[in-house]
């Protein structure tokens, strides 16, 4: 072979390699194979929700193949959406989430602008403090808050317990710190010259914020809004602790506490309720996935 190589002048090939593209192709096939396994794992519960929600209660109790719908029916959906109660849960959830989003964005955008751009005594410490408060979990705060509500009732006569609007006051503790953190990171990435140009153009601080920073930071604001919405929509502990009457409940608590009655589980309706309750965040996610992901990763990559 060596002789032949010299004779023809062609480069010799002492070891036989499998071609690069061959290796690549197999790496890809294995990647797809494992990805499919993981997707099956990750999507089983929501798919199972959907399957069950399409079954009649007789089909569920007949214990046929649980992974297949033999007689698909929308009766669960009709029944649930025909109930006033479920619609009230939905309305409460929607009102709470929308109000929390608005309050959160107003507080965090103005504060983030002040912290990122204007600097005042203690602003750096406050920025760090904001991040730390984000790490204080709801499971640590619900008991003192519970007591504080009682104190407010005793001193002012305002009853905060068992009202859905109380959640509007409480939820910002979960959303504002992180949204402020995202917005600080986002504002910090805007070149310093932009606000200097605005300053020279004669804009006040408020005008710089509303006319320059907010429009430029729209992607960050969308990401923070989505975050605030999903957190308020999903919050479970506070409404469970602070609301009890069925007309004051929000969706997650409403489904868990009212559809599960003692030992009687109406699984068709529970799954329907859960699926409908998961729908708003899923729909937002489907349309604004990139913003959603930007918000998720912002916490660690910025700042």
């Amino acid at each position: 072979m060596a002789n032949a190589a010299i004779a023809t002048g062609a480069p010799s090939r002492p070891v036989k390699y499998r071609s690069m593209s061959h290796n690549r192709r197999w790496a890809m096939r294995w990647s797809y194979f494992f990805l499919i396994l993981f997707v099956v794992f990750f999507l089983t519960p929501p798919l199972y929700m959907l399957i069950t929600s399409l079954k009649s209660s007789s089909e569920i109790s007949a214990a046929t193949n649980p992974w297949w719908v033999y007689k698909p029916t929308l009766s669960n959906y009709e029944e649930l959406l025909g109930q006033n109660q479920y619609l009230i849960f939905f309305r409460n959830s929607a009102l709470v989430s929308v109000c929390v989003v608005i309050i959160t964005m107003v507080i965090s955008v103005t504060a983030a602008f002040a912290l990122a751009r204007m600097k005042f005594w203690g602003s750096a410490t406050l920025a760090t403090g904001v991040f730390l408060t984000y790490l204080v979990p709801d499971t640590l705060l619900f008991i003192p808050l519970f007591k504080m509500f009682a104190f407010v009732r005793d001193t002012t006569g305002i009853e905060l317990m068992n009202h859905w609007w109380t959640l509007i006051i409480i939820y910002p503790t979960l959303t504002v710190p992180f949204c402020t953190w995202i917005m600080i990171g986002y504002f910090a990435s805007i070149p310093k010259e932009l606000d200097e140009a605005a300053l020279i153009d004669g804009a006040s601080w408020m005008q710089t914020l509303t006319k320059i920073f907010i429009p430029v930071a729209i992607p960050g604001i969308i990401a923070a809004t989505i975050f605030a919405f999903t957190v308020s929509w999903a919050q479970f502990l506070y409404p469970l602790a602070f609301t009890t009457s069925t007309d004051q409940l929000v969706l997650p608590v409403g489904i868990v506490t009212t559809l599960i009655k003692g030992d009687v589980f109406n699984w068709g309706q529970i799954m329907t309720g859960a699926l409908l309750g998961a729908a708003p965040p899923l729909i937002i996610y489907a349309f604004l996935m990139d913003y959603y992901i930007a918000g998720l990763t912002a916490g660690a990559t910025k700042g």
Partner: protein
Amino acid sequence: MAQVTLRKVVKKYDEVMAVRGVDLDIADKEFIVLVGPSGCGKSTTLRMIAGLEEISGGDIAIGGDVVNDVPPKDRDIAMVFQNYALYPHMNVYENMSFGLKLKRTPRNEIEQRVKQAAQILDITELLDRKPKQLSGGQRQRVAMGRAIVRDPKVFLFDEPLSNLDAKLRVQMRTEIKKVHQKVRTTTVYVTHDQVEAMTLADRVVVMNAGLIEQVGSPNDLYHLPATKFVAGFIGSPAMNFIPCQLEQAAGALRIRLNDKLSMPVPASRTKRYASFAGKPDLVLGLRPEHISETRPHAEPDQHDFDMPIEVVEPMGMETLVYFTVNNTEICGRVNPDAGSAAGQAMKLRADLSKMHLIDNSTGKVL
């Protein structure tokens, strides 16, 4: 009338002195360029004129009024930034009119002024584009347009061409000069590029370590530098600095470079240099173009010498040759046809009528 006056202006960051007492008078309609290496305080000085930095000491006056406490918007200035700082969510028209809108200028006047500025800069057809859709040069024009529209007392430019590629930079340089000739607004321009400084300025201000080294017309700075720093900073390739001695022998003044090499001081300079004979720590400053290949007949103040050439760099219209004297690398500019070759000796000629004698201990040109 828009003169700008700086009196003993100082800027301190905590303990660091960024600007250490700058005095400068800028006349109305003048184009002044602040030039110097990075960290010399030129940008800080500009930003203090703009009002973006507080002044730690001294006074700044624009059009005769001290503006130390006046916020940027009331100083009647316009600034062009290195990264253009165009508002990304506004189109070109909105970018240019933003300042006027904030001042509640009537709509038709805004429109007229924007159109006029756009015409000067030849960006009329770009008015409804977003900054994203513009090339670097076009963004640069818009940034200038935003400044022109406001018809300010002073234009401030902060390294406006640094983000452009070399070719565009030359083109925009000419453009800026043309615009200034049209609008005649007092201009303060900061750059680290001495070519930009030389080509644009009526007067150049060379800054170093927070102080002004020299103020003068481009030609003055080039031919009559006041300090070693200016001599070395202006001109490319840079001026050669060769350690030397000044000898007084038999009534004639000679520059001695080493045992073998010494040259008589031109007659025109003998009187000026006489008192420095024997002074230690002297440096001969000679620009590369004043070291060339030898020519057939002798000329006054020009001296021939033989040198082994170490490196040859053909540039096309000229060839740079490098050799070493007193452990110092020297650059000369010779005719491409002079037959220079690395490793070979070459007959060169130094034109001492253009020499500078520098006191290395003070950095002053004598």
